[in-house]
């Protein structure tokens, strides 16, 4: 079978959920990955959406986090204040899964505004949504986005959501209870925070990608981890499940 680079990214993002029991699912790519995980390696994975659903089991990828099927298939539906206060903030969720517009070397995230240079107005992004508190309160955080120097930047134009702040110890100083980002999955490979410096380093490339490609597509001098791995190619099971999920929701 052949696959697209987005499929590679999603399959690897789903694999990163191995061992998770509960996942707070961001809109877009994270939803595809979390649903794929539930269809493959983690059938018991409890999907939690900020629209208020606990334990959604959609058969197709929802276009939005408020699609009816998320509520219809959930173990429980609660109000939006409740999902944020009793469930997310309370630290009950193992993994927060987020997309991002800009990510820096410490896995901080900008989804608010981009600087377009002098004399030009700031470019508007959608905004924070649930991300600041998802990244603060979940046991750990996964990020998924396409790999480019536009997305992976030396310096964020705005810090919407804290990953590892300005390095080791930042999260503790800020009082952020969760462990923060543990992996950034892209269409080229996987970056993980270095255990010493908390800086994102390239730990895996996908089949057919070279580390040089990933370094060139990163806005800071991306370190390559010793013992760089190549991810396993998507299996037929994974691809079939992903394509079945995607049917009828072309842009999810």
């Amino acid at each position, binding site marked *: 079978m052949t696959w697209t680079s987005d499929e590679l990214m999603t399959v690897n993002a789903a694999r990163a959920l191995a061992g998770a029991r509960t996942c707070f699912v961001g*809109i877009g790519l994270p939803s595809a990955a979390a649903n794929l995980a539930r269809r493959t390696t983690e059938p018991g994975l409890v999907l939690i959406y900020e*629209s208020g659903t606990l334990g959604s089991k959609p058969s197709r990828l929802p276009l939005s986090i408020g699609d*009816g099927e998320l509520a219809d298939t959930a173990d429980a*539906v609660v109000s939006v204040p409740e999902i944020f206060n009793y469930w997310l903030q309370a630290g009950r969720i193992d993994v927060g899964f987020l997309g991002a517009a800009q990510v820096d070397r410490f896995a901080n995230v900008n989804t608010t505004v981009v600087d377009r240079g002098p004399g030009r*107005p700031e470019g508007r992004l959608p*905004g*924070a949504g649930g991300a*600041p508190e998802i990244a*603060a309160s979940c046991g750990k955080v996964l990020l998924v986005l396409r790999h480019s120097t536009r997305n992976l930047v030396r310096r964020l134009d705005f810090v919407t959501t804290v990953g590892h702040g300005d390095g080791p110890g930042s999260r503790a100083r800020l009082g952020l209870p969760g462990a923060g980002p543990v992996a950034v999955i892209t269409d080229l490979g996987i970056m993980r925070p270095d255990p010493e410096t908390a800086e994102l380093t390239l730990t895996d490339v996908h089949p057919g990608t070279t580390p040089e490609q990933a370094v060139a597509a990163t806005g800071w001098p991306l370190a390559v981890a010793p013992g760089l791995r190549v991810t396993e190619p998507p299996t037929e099971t994974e691809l079939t499940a992903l394509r079945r999920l995607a049917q009828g929701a072309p*842009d999810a």
Partner: protein
Amino acid sequence: MAEIRSLRDAVAGLVHSGDTVAMEGFTHLIPFAAAHEMIRQRVSDLTLVRMTPDVIYDQLIGMGAARKLVFSWGGNPGVGSLHRFRDAVENGWPRPLELDEHSHAGMANRYVAGASRLPFAVLRGYRGSDLPSRSGTISTVVCPFTGEELAAVAAINPDVTVIHAQRADRDGNVQLWGLVGVQKEAALAASRVLVTVEEIVDDLTPAPGAVVLPSWTVDAVAVAPNGAHPSYAAGYTVRDNGFYQSWDAVSRDRDAFLRWMDENVLEGAR
């Protein structure tokens, strides 16, 4: 007690230019019909409040009805940007749009404080984020028991909250179910409440997961079948994902947008 009124009369009676208006519905039950009536009645200078502005506020903003937006996530869910929102913020078209920008957790708690008639709410939020630097409604409080510093957000108390629900009875008691979002809080936080419904029924038979707003908390109920389209009302309609996708092209271009509004919304007023 809620009066059952036509949508035109209800909007004319309850929504005034210059008001702070919350129109809630988290993807589900978005009150599009009421927004279109507001556009037809040329309500203007609004402070619009909504966690997810969505296409409904893209339309109001693009028609110049808003001077300020209070929100937490301004995208077209699953599709991309809200182009009218971006054009207003980036280029001031058709008029500048002031922003008060929060996280979802912050906005949800602002409504909770509003519904509870407290001046603020406390949450573990915004830590390390640049968001507080751009908002006058985010601050901190210190726990008097532990000394921990926490985020405080100012209550939202709209002049009027507008929501869509599945149904009401003849006394104006309102029932909604499915994703109930933050509608109860938004309604109870407001000075005035307008609810559009799919239908009026004799009796509100209890339904799983249903929220009931008693008649005495609502000012007007207006029947607006399919009044959430392109959003949906669980049990009555389904989300028109195709519309959300097609909105991207319509809203990208100012003229195409105005033409679409003229043909699909203003037409109704003539």
